[in-house]
């Protein structure tokens, strides 16, 4: 069983420069996440929720404020923090098994035999037995996303970050994978943070739902979801919490999607492309 991490985010500020003008993407974001907690972050496009994950995973370090994992400031990417993106980002030239194994390439603690066993276990965990030798082009979107989850978990990270992981899937697959993700979270007992624009997904999965608002991106409210699991999406209590989250959006002072900001986020990835 992996050790679950405590994540502490203090007064986080993040700015991008757009056409020479500074643009604040995150302003004074503070969030404390307990070990083994499942936190959902919802918000409209451009509220900085994906930027927040990008900072926590360590792909960017140009920010003000602190991100602490178990009390230590995070530096760069690390095997303690795994991430699953909206696109599965599997390597098309590797099989399912080999793709998951890439997650272990930098792991020096495990022996080869242990690595082999860990890959097998994680294939089982995400329910992909029998597909070990399939190539990504042979998998459906949902199956690919399962592989991505297994790959992110194979190092037994303390925190798993999920950036709209089911956003590109059809409704049936999505709700099924939400159940699966909840099961995996319960089995692994690690800290998980999911970023989503799907309010129902946020309420279904999260112990807490963090509502963010844009311009500049900041936390508007944090709502507790104290419902027993597995949750019934049709129950009265579930609907009540869902409606409360929706209400946070309807009376947002700035409101609405801001496509310009999400465009900036994409640009920063391209800039990053050749900067290693």
């Amino acid at each position, binding site marked *: 069983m992996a050790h679950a991490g405590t994540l502490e985010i203090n007064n986080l500020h993040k700015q991008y420069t757009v056409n020479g003008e500074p643009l604040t993407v995150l302003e004074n974001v503070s969030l404390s996440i307990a070990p083994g907690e499942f936190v959902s972050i919802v918000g409209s496009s451009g509220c900085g929720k994906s930027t927040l994950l990008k900072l926590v*995973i360590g792909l960017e370090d140009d920010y003000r404020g602190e991100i602490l994992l178990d009390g230590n400031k995070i530096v760069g*990417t690390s095997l303690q923090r795994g991430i699953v*993106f909206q696109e599965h980002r599997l390597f098309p*030239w590797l099989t399912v098994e080999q793709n998951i194994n890439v997650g272990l390439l*930098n792991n020096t603690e495990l022996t080869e035999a242990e690595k082999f066993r860990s890959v097998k276990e994680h294939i089982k965990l995400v329910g992909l037995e029998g597909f070990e030798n399939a190539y990504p082009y042979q998998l459906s979107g949902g199956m690919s996303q399962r592989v991505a989850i297994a790959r992110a978990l194979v190092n037994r990270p303390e925190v798993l970050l999920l950036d709209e992981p089911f956003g590109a899937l059809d409704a049936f697959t999505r709700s099924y994978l939400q159940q699966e993700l909840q099961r995996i979270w319960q089995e692994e007992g690690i800290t998980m943070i999911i970023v989503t624009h799907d309010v129902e997904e946020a309420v279904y999965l999260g112990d807490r739902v963090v509502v963010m608002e844009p311009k500049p991106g900041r936390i508007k409210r944090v709502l507790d979801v104290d419902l027993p699991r597995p949750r019934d999406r049709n129950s009265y209590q579930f609907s009540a919490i869902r409606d409360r989250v929706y209400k946070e959006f309807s009376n947002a002072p700035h409101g609405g999607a801001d496509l310009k900001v999400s465009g900036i986020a994409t640009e920063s*990835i391209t800039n*990053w492309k050749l900067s*290693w």
Partner: protein
Amino acid sequence: MPSLQQTITLVDASSKLLAISPVFYQLFRRSIAIILFLALWEIAPRLGLVEAAFLPPLSEVLLTGWKLILNGQLFTHLQASLSRSLIGFGVAVLFAIPLGLAIGWYKNFADTINPLLEMLRNTAALALLPVFILFLGIGEASKIALIIYACSWPILLNTITGVRNVDPLLIKSARTMGLSPVRLFQKVILPAAVPTIFVGVRLAGAFSVLVLVAAEMVGAKAGLGYLIIYSQYNFQIPEMFLGIITITLVGLTINYLLVTLERHFTAWKVVHTE
């Protein structure tokens, strides 16, 4: 009027024909143009549509070919040409792929060297043949150098493109798994670039044969290009055509082998069916 029984038999027979035909039909469709072309080659000179002295019938060319096989001449020419092509191609692969990887990987290096590459790749290889002869003499060295030069460009440029165009999302994803730059290159950049590199390698395979003929037209004592030009001087027209056919077959074989190799290396790609 045909009886019902007859109609059924007819329908049955034609459906049976259709059932075996897909494979046959494919084969037919793919070879009919070549068959017609070869038939035309055979018939046109015989009917006097073209001068048989300039374009001998195919059968005559093949008969000459058989003689040259029996007396070992064809083998001598083939061996001379193949060794030049393969050495030139091989050296180009060994030299251009690593260079291309390095150029693609180091952005500063790429920016510095790119203008020069742009200039050089627009210099026609054959235009440089006199230069190569001037420096390396009329022997093997200049011929092989020319083939190396011609083969290097497609490999080099495609390798650079392959490395530069790796999906940034895959690179980012690899970084989240803590891959070091060396591992990143080895496990992500290189395999992702392989299909593009192979496009260059296949082009180079074709170039190695194309340039060969020109190279062998100057100061060679053996080789398919030499066979063609020498036969033409001596008005041995069937021999000339035989040389042309053999070069075509060599080109086809090289391409076939490279395609097979490419399939092996890119088996992970989506298989496109018709």
